[in-house]
C-alpha cells in the first residue's frame, strides 16, 4: 500500500508491465470463454428475435413502394399543386403511363393499389382494373394519354386520386402511425379520421382499462392465496401450490374454451342459475362475448403470474416481525396493515407489472371469449397482419403498444423503484 502511494507512476506488475494492462490481459481469456459459451444463444436471439422485431418496427414507417413503383410520376407530381382542384397536366400522365408499363410487366401495380387502398378506398380496384389496358400502351407512340386514361377509368380524372399518390409518395411516412391513432395523412396535413372510422384509440383505451381491471382483480384474488401459501405448513402449502400451478400444465386454448363452456348462455353457470330459479329462463345472463367474459377468463389465466411473485416475497417476510409487532401491543389488523402489508408491496408490484404487461398484449383469450366488445388491440394487430395485410399499420400499432408498456415501466420505476421488484 505504501509503495503504491509513494510511487507517482501507475502500479506495475512483477514483470514491469503496468498492472492495469496485465490485469486486462488475464481477464480477456475469461471474457472470451464466457462469450463463446453464450454465443449460440446470442446468435439465436439476434436472428430470431431482435432482427424480426427491428424489421417490424421499421415497417411502421417504411413506404418506399410508391417511389419504387412510380418513380417518374412522383417526380412529375412535384410541380403539381394538389390544392388547385384541377387534374395534373399531360407530363404527369405521360410519366404515369411509362411507370405503369414497367409495373404491369413486373405485376407490382396491384400491390401498389392495395397499399394506396389503405388510405383511400377504391384505389385497389382502380389500379387492378386499369392495369391490363394500361400495360398495352406504348409510351413512345400512343400519346397524349390524359384523355385515354380518363377513358379507361374515370378515377384518373379525379384530382383526389393524384393527391393521394402525391401525399403518400415519400419513402418514410408517418401515415401508419397517424392511422394507428385514428388520424390520416392528407394533402392538408394530419387530420382526424371520420367519426365512423375512429376505432383504434377506443381499442387502446379499452385494452389499458381492461388490463388495469384484470390486474386489480388478480391482486385481490392472489393476495390471500399467496398469504396462505407462505404461512401454511410446508405439506399443505405444497398441495395448494400444485393447485395454483395446475392451470400451467393445461393448454391455454383448453382453459379458454372451458370458460366458453362455463359462461355461455346455455352454459354451466346460466343453467345452474336457471335451475336454482335465481334467473328467469328468458333472462339468462350475458357473460360471454363481452368485456365481462374477457375479464373473468383472463383474470383466471393470469392469476398464477400474480400469485408466484407475491408468494416468493411473502415467504421472505419472517414471522418474527408479526410477533414483534404484537408484543409491542399492536392488534392483528394494525400488525397486518403497518408491518406485514408494507413488506409485501414488492411482491404486489412485481406481480402487477407481470400481469399488466401480459394482459395488455393478450390475444387468444379475448379472441375466443371477447366477442366484439371484449377484444384487445392485439386482436386488431392480428387482423391487420393476417386478414387486411396492412402490415405497416400492424407494425405501428405494435410499436405504440411497446412504447406504452415501456412508459408504464418507466413510471413504475420512478414511483416504486424497479430494484424493489422481486420475482423469486
Amino acid at each position, binding site marked *: 500500500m505504501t509503495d503504491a502511494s509513494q510511487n507517482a507512476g501507475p502500479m506495475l506488475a512483477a514483470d514491469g508491465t503496468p498492472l492495469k494492462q496485465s490485469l486486462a490481459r488475464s481477464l480477456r481469456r475469461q471474457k472470451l470463454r464466457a462469450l463463446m459459451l453464450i454465443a449460440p444463444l446470442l446468435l439465436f436471439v439476434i436472428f430470431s428475435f431482435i432482427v424480426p422485431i427491428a424489421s417490424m418496427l421499421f415497417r411502421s414507417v417504411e413506404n418506399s413502394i410508391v417511389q419504387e413503383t412510380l418513380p417518374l410520376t412522383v417526380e412529375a407530381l412535384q410541380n403539381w399543386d394538389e390544392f388547385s382542384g384541377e387534374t395534373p397536366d399531360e407530363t404527369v400522365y405521360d410519366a404515369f403511363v411509362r411507370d405503369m408499363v414497367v409495373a404491369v410487366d413486373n405485376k407490382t401495380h396491384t400491390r401498389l393499389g392495395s397499399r394506396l387502398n389503405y388510405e383511400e378506398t377504391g384505389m385497389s380496384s382502380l389500379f387492378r382494373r386499369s392495369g391490363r389496358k394500361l400495360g398495352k400502351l406504348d409510351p413512345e407512340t400512343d400519346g397524349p394519354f390524359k384523355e385515354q386514361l380518363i377513358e379507361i377509368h374515370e378515377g384518373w380524372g379525379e384530382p383526389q386520386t393524384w393527391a393521394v399518390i402525391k401525399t403518400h409518395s415519400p419513402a418514410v411516412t408517418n401515415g401508419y402511425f397517424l392511422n394507428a391513432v385514428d388520424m390520416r395523412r392528407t394533402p392538408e396535413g394530419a387530420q382526424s379520421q371520420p367519426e365512423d372510422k375512429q376505432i383504434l384509440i377506443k381499442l387502446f383505451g379499452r385494452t389499458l382499462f381492461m388490463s388495469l381491471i384484470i390486474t386489480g382483480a388478480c391482486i385481490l384474488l392472489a393476495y390471500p392465496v399467496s398469504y396462505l401459501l407462505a404461512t401454511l405448513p410446508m405439506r399443505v402449502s405444497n398441495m395448494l401450490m400444485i393447485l395454483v400451478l395446475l392451470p400451467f400444465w393445461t393448454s391455454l386454448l383448453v382453459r379458454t374454451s372451458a370458460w366458453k363452456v362455463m359462461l355461455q348462455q346455455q352454459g354451466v353457470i346460466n343453467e345452474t342459475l336457471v335451475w336454482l330459479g335465481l334467473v328467469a329462463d328468458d333472462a339468462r345472463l350475458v357473460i360471454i362475448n363481452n368485456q365481462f367474459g374477457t375479464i373473468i377468463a383472463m383474470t383466471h389465466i393470469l392469476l398464477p403470474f400474480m400469485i408466484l411473485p407475491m408468494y416468493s416475497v411473502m415467504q421472505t417476510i419472517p414471522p418474527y416481525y408479526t410477533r414483534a409487532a*404484537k408484543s409491542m401491543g*399492536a392488534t392483528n389488523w394494525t400488525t397486518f396493515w403497518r408491518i406485514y402489508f408494507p413488506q409485501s408491496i414488492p411482491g404486489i408490484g412485481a406481480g402487477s407489472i407481470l400481469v399488466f404487461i401480459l394482459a395488455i398484449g393478450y390475444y387468444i383469450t379475448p379472441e375466443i371469449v371477447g366477442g366484439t366488445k371484449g377484444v384487445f388491440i392485439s386482436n386488431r394487430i392480428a387482423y391487420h397482419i393476417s386478414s387486411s395485410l396492412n402490415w405497416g399499420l400492424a407494425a405501428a400499432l405494435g410499436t405504440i403498444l411497446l412504447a406504452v408498456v415501456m412508459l408504464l415501466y418507466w413510471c413504475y420505476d420512478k414511483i416504486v423503484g424497479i430494484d424493489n421488484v422481486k420475482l423469486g
Partner: protein
Amino acid sequence: MTDTNSDAAFVEFQRVQKSYDGENLVVKDLNLALPKGEFLTMLGPSGSGKTTCLMMLAGFETATHGEILLDGKPINNIPPHKRGIGMVFQNYALFPHMTVAENLSFPLEVRKLGKSEREEKVKRALDMVQMGAFGGRRPAQLSGGQQQRIALARALVFEPELVLMDEPLGALDKQLREHMQFEITRLAHELGITTVYVTHDQTEALTMSDRVAVFDDGRIQQLAPPDQLYEEPENSFVAQFIGENNTLEGVVKSIDGDTCLVQLDDGSEIDAVPINVHNPGERTKVSIRPERVEFNKDRLHADAHTLKATVKEFIYMGDVFRFRMSVAGNDEFIVKTRNAPDAVRLQPGQEIDIGWLAKDCRALDA
C-alpha cells in the same frame, strides 16, 4: 425494586405443560416463580424447552396444561398484544421499512400516545442506549451491535414491567457480546424491570443473571444463583453443562451424613459429598471442577484425598495452564492451574499425585 411487595411472585408458572403433537411433552410440569425486578436466565441446550416457555409467557404459544400468572392474574387467555410485555428477538426483528425512530415510535402509536409525548419517549429511549443520533437511519444501515441496541430500546420504550429476551446476543461477535451483556444488565437493574432471558451460552447466563434456570428435557434441572449453580450443581447434567467438569464413575460404598465413600471403577476409593445418592451400592458420577484439583504437594491439604495421575498433555492457554491427565481410568481428566510465577509445568508422561478437598467432590446421579 422500590416495590415493598417485591418478594411476591411477579411471574409464575404453575404446573405448566406444553405439547405440540399430542404425543411428546416439550415442557414437562414447569413450576417457576420470579419476584419483581429479578433477572432470570433460562439456560439449556437447544430443544430443552426454554424458548417454548418464553413464547408461552409472551403469548405466542398456549400452555397445554397449567396456569401462567402475571402479577397474580392468569394470562392464558390474554392475547399477546394485551399483555404489555416487552420483547427482544434473536434477530432483532426491527421493521425494515421504518426508520429507527419510527420503529421505536410504533409501540407508542398503537397505545395512542400524543405526538410530542411519543417523540420525547423515543428520544429518551435512544439516549438510554447511546443511539440518539441514529433516529433517522434505517435498520439496514446499522451494524449488528447498533441494531441490538435499537431492539433493546424498542422493547423498553413503552415502559413494560416485564421484558423477555430470546438469545438477543447470539448474532454478535465475542467482544461486542460481552459489552452488551454489561449494558443489558445495567439497564435492567437501573430501570428495575423484571427480565426473563433465554440463552444457550452459559457464560452469558452466569455473568448476567440474578438466578439461572437450567433446562433440559423439558424440566428445570436446577434453579439457583450463578455461583451456587457452578459450585454446587445438583445433578450430573448441570455439572456437565455449566463450566468444565471432571467426572469419575463408581459405586457408593457407604454414606455417613455429609460424606460418602465412593469406590471408583479402577478400585481406588475417594470421599465425596453425597448430593443425590441415597443408598450404598448405587452407581454415581463424581464431579470435580478442574481448577479445584491440586497437584502441588506443598499446597495439598492434609485431609485431601489423593489419586495417582499420569500427565497426557500440556496445553498453554496464556492465563492458565491446562493439563489432560489419566486418572482412575478416565483419560479426559482436566486440571487447570493459574499461570503464576511459581507455577509448575508438568510434562507429558510424568506421574504425580493429585488431590482435592472432599467438599469440592460431589457424588451425583449416574
